[in-house]
């Protein structure tokens, strides 16, 4: 092949999952995991917008110490509903329900998930839960904090608690069904030859995520049911005046809600584990350790929940135990970061947009994770609990970590989903804008929290204004970084350059079928005989030649 030869222009397949059937019914009654993934993509984006609007209102309100935008009561509703929308209706479903649904059957060589109808049901359950929650928002809103602590939520709040609790309760079952589907699929429907240690790391992390969804979500479901019963029938489980214990609510709530944060980060780690090897042209270093670390995070993540309750009134001996276990849970995350770094070392690195998001993930996740260690220290936590330090910590993980992984994954697999490439140059600019905006928004919040600015307050002392203004300025830049992909990814679905089956090229099974894939995914069930991330011995993917001799692909925009 001469150095000046260019790749032949790719063409779209004649029949694929998007044009197999037309009409609203073919989408609303589909059992195709790929279409369901797109249904989820639309719905989670709606809730991302809603949560984003609340965030904008919070940041604008906090431009001045007195806060002139909204009243104190409304401010309580803003941060509450920002949290509810983002956590339950965006972050938790995002990667699993969009990318997981789309990719897992493709990655394991199956025709669909184990239970396609349950998959569609999970989306409808999500939508019904969303409608109840939206109703709560428009009928006055919820003001208890997304953490719904009793007895404020069960006795004293006059806000729209009941519809929100019902909405979140129902939404939990969407999560449970998704996790169940993934777990059974990964166990029973792998293609011949696809042993556990040949699976892409994306599948491993979704397996670990499914474990958490299955074992954790039912507990918040019953907690919300108990809280709802308490509110509606004036029972006393969590009400001290009736002999109940508010701390019991917190134990039950956080038993799920801490593992929930691992539901949010593990899939993103899975995406990063796909992106780093692909764009470093090297196998994932320490594959088995990364797989084991994913399971370890899922398991140990269930043992640390009361680190959210250090100052709530629990026994100090229990606090000691939970603090120690919280340090333990950082270890598998660190193992992953070291393995990603080792994968990059001496790799042939290219800076395509997905890689920019992956690299951003690593840096920001490390900051978020390390500040989590500060919080795990009992002594430090007493000082910074309920301050902006905590807010900055979890936004570094959830936005700097989870959302960056989500966006990186969307970009990486957009050609597979739509058959077309996004505009590369614009996408890189957008990633950089997002990274800059994100850090300007949230780094000042570490300082604010350490200096003592409490969270969930509608006013603050005047000396904190400078950092608040920086944070709001950052938020406006961050917003641009979110809006740009929404626009150009949509544009690219119709007008992007046709991608072909494997534009990167990458090594997963999903890249061995057409872009977009046919409804049944593969013409014949593949038989797997190769190791994952093998960039050297895969002539079938054009990956036999060493990196220096690769023909440069054409990039537009």
């Amino acid at each position, binding site marked *: 092949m001469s150095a000046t030869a260019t790749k032949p222009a790719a063409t779209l397949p004649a029949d694929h999952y998007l044009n197999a059937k037309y009409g609203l019914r073919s989408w609303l009654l589909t*059992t195709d995991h790929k279409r369901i993934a797109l249904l989820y993509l639309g719905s989670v984006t709606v809730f991302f917008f809603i949560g984003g609007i609340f965030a904008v209102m919070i940041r604008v309100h906090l431009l001045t110490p007195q806060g002139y935008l909204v009243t104190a009561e409304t401010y309580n509703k803003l941060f509450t509903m920002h949290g509810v929308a983002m956590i339950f209706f965006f972050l938790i479903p995002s990667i699993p329900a969009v990318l997981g649904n789309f990719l897992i*059957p493709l990655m394991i060589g*199956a*025709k*669909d*998930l*184990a*239970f*396609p109808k349950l998959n569609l049901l999970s989306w409808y359950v999500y939508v019904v839960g969303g409608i109840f929650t939206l109703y709560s928002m428009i009928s006055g809103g919820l003001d208890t904090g997304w953490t719904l602590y009793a007895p404020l939520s069960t006795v004293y709040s006059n806000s729209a608690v009941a519809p929100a609790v019902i909405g979140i309760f129902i939404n939990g079952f969407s999560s*449970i069904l998704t996790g*169940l589907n993934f*777990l*059974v*699929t990964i*166990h*029973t*429907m792998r293609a011949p030859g696809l042993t556990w240690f040949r699976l892409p790391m994306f599948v491993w992390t979704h397996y670990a995520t499914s474990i958490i969804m*299955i*074992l*954790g*979500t*039912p*507990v918040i*479901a*019953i*907690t919300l049911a*108990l809280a709802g*019963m308490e509110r509606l*029938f*004036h*029972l*006393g*489980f969590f009400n001290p005046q*009736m*002999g*109940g*214990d508010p701390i*019991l609510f917190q*134990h*039950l709530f956080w*038993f799920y809600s801490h593992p929930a944060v691992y539901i949010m980060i593990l899939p993103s780690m899975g995406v990063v584990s796909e992106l780093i090897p692909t764009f470093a042209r090297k196998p994932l270093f320490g594959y088995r350790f990364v797989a084991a670390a994913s399971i370890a995070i899922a398991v140990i993540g269930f043992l640390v929940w009361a680190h959210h309750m250090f100052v709530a009134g629990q026994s100090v001996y229990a606090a000691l135990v939970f603090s120690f276990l919280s340090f333990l849970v950082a270890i598998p995350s660190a193992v992953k970061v070291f393995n990603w770094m080792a994968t990059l070392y001496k790799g042939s690195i290219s800076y395509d947009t997905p890689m920019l998001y992956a690299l951003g993930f690593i840096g920001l996740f490390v900051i978020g994770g390390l500040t989590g260690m500060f919080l795990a220290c009992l002594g430090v936590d007493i000082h910074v609990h309920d301050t902006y330090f905590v807010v900055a910590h979890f936004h570094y993980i959830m936005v700097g970590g989870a959302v960056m992984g989500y966006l990186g994954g969307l970009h990486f697999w957009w050609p597979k989903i739509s058959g077309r490439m996004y505009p590369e140059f614009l996408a890189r600019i957008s990633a950089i804008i997002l990274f800059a905006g994100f850090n300007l928004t949230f780094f000042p919040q570490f300082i604010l929290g350490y200096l003592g600015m409490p969270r969930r307050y509608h006013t603050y002392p005047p000396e904190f204004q400078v950092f608040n203004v920086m944070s709001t300025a950052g938020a406006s830049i961050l917003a641009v970084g979110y809006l740009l992909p929404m626009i150009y990814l949509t544009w690219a679905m119709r007008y992007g350059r046709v991608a072909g089956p494997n534009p990167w090229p990458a090594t997963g099974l999903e890249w061995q079928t057409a872009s977009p894939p046919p409804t*049944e995914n593969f013409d014949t*069930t593949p038989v797997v005989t190769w190791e994952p991330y093998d960039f050297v011995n895969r002539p079938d993917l054009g990956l036999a030649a060493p990196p220096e001799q690769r023909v440069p692909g054409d990039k537009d925009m």
Partner: protein
Amino acid sequence: MHRTGELYGQFETLEQQREASSLGMWVFLITEVMFFGGVFLTYTINRAIYPAAFGIGSNTLDLRLGGFNTAVLIASSFTMAMAVWASQTGKKKLIPLFLTLTLVLGSVFLGVKVVEYAQKFEHHLVPGRSFQIDAHIENQAQKQELEAAFAKDPDLNAHAQLYFSLYFGMTGLHALHMLIGAGLLLWLIRESLRGRFTPQYNTPVEVVGLYWHFVDIVWIYLFPLLYLIDRHK
């Protein structure tokens, strides 16, 4: 995905389908373990803090009805297991018979629960504004017990109400699961009358059986925890 015979299109073989369905039901059951687990935790903490109130609450339950119901539910698990056996051994006529027996026994259980709930309502033992632990006193021994308990714990009424909140919450949740099970049994009976289940394909019977046995296990724990507190007093 379309279906050819009993094989759904996403699966390669009937064996894979059976494996996936069975694993799916087991995984669902452990979500139920965690679901009930939250309310069992609430029970544990509250009983540990208010043992006397829980004992008094428990003694108002009719042990004959509770014991009878336990026997009925265990028997229904037996008939359900027999239904699965009939489907595995090709005894097509016995499948709907055993399923119907299971349904009947389950319905008896629910009927008894209705009777019990009605009794609680009459005796002002339903949590809410009209809850009063000493509204209905059967005999002198109970009166003395209540007076002694009130002396030690002036808030006995509120703490006993916690017990009854858990009683209704846990048995209500259990009864809801039995209703769903009854619905599943009705569907199975209809399908088995159509001769759908053979030794090659009996997955739905097996899977509903797992669900039914789980509901039985929940009751196996509920019975001693709710009915058998402080019975020696």
